[in-house]
């Protein structure tokens, strides 16, 4: 797993905090939004994988990729991107395994955000 991107990219997080003038309250709000939205996207990806519906997975995977990248959740973003592309190409096989991987990354991301005091 060493070739995987980090769960959280500290540089991105730092740049994000700088860009909002060190407003920690805003960053905390942003993370809270991410967690709520992300949980919903994860649930949608689970459902799509369970149904073997490659098309239905594109949208939540895309949003997850985008939001995760904004917060420096690099691993989550990278896995979501792979899933989005697989979904766009209609590759249903291996979808369940990929989503399982995404689920693990998601939990790691949530844990890491909590560990840094960014999530309640």
């Amino acid at each position, binding site marked *: 797993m060493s070739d995987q991107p980090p769960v959280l990219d500290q540089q*991105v997080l730092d740049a*994000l905090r700088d*860009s*909002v*003038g060190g407003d920690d309250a*805003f960053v905390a*709000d*942003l993370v809270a*939004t*991410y967690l*709520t*939205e992300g949980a919903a996207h994860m649930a949608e990806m689970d459902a799509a994988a369970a149904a073997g519906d490659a098309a239905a997975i594109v*949208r939540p995977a*895309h*949003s997850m*990729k*985008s*939001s995760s*990248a*904004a*917060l420096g959740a690099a691993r989550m973003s990278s896995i979501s*991107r792979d899933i989005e*592309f697989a979904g766009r190409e209609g590759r249903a096989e291996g979808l369940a395994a990929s989503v399982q991987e995404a689920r693990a990354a998601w939990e790691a991301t949530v844990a890491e955000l909590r560990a840094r005091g960014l999530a309640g």
Partner: protein
Amino acid sequence: MSEPVALIVDDSAVNRMLLARHLGSMGIAAREAGDGKAALAALQTSSEDVAVVLLDVMMPEMDGYETLAAIKSDESLRQLPVIMISGIDELATVARCIELGAADFLAKPFDPVILAARVRASLADKRLRDAEAAHAAAQAELLGTIERQKSELARFLSPQVAALISSPEGEQMLAGHRREATAVFCDLRGFTAFSDSAEPEEVLGLLREYHAMMGASINEHGGTLEHFAGDGMMVFFNDPVLQPDHVARAVRMAVAMRDRFAPLAAKWSKLGFELGLGIGIATGYATLGRIGFEGRYDYGMVGTAVIVASRLSSAAEGGQILLNPRAHAAVEVIVFVEPVGELQLKGFARPIPAVNVVGYRSPGDPIDSDTELATTAADL
């Protein structure tokens, strides 16, 4: 104008929040939409204050490309700058969006400095376009006003003078110039007695008929009406529009007036009123231009010819068209005249030999207005 508002269209709540925050620090309020359909709905209900749209490429329901196409095909939204927001994987789509009219694009994750620069550029662009549109609207309104004034002016002035006032060389012409011109005076014999004994309604009715007839004759022959007062009128030719045949035109107009007047005179005669039309025509050098005082100017003709024409008109009996020698010389090949003797005109030391126009030398003469019209049509 209201404060600029940016419409953020992105399916990611995190992205919307971040963009709204960055825009807020630039003093730009944000409105948010989660997909293209919601964005179009927001624009259709209140697009006026929206100054820029930040549009995500990949969205559920209606994606960025479709949304952009809808914005660009809507006449009222077309000018709205749209900045595409795209992930690194979507650059091919972004290129298509730029071709479709997107103003710019912004890569995710956002760099606030680049975001600020692109949004400011789009806003400046929109302000410029709005200013241009406002200017064009003001210009159109001004032109509309001028056109209205011109058409209103044309109802009060001779068409030639109205055109002159609105033309670029008008000021120079109005300032005054000297040239040869032909003055025509006409008034009614017996009008004073008529207006003394007739009912006011009859007087006004007669004047209406008379003016309508005279006006038609003036316009047909291209005369410039300087003024009319009761039954008297003064018309001149060869100014402001140059007319090489100005004397012939004046005489032709006078003959037309006399011909048209005859049935009217016959009608009034049956009612017991004896009215005759006397016309005086004189050609000579004169000064033409703006005459009057601040607040009230006329476009007028000043010179001896004007006075001679006026005196000839007074001297004319009903049905006579009197010419001064210079006018006579110019039209003697086309009209028969009879001498009326040397007229001692008021204000002139020497008597003036005047002639009365009897009729055209030939009915098919080129001076005949119908023939001339036919010739003109053939020339075209």
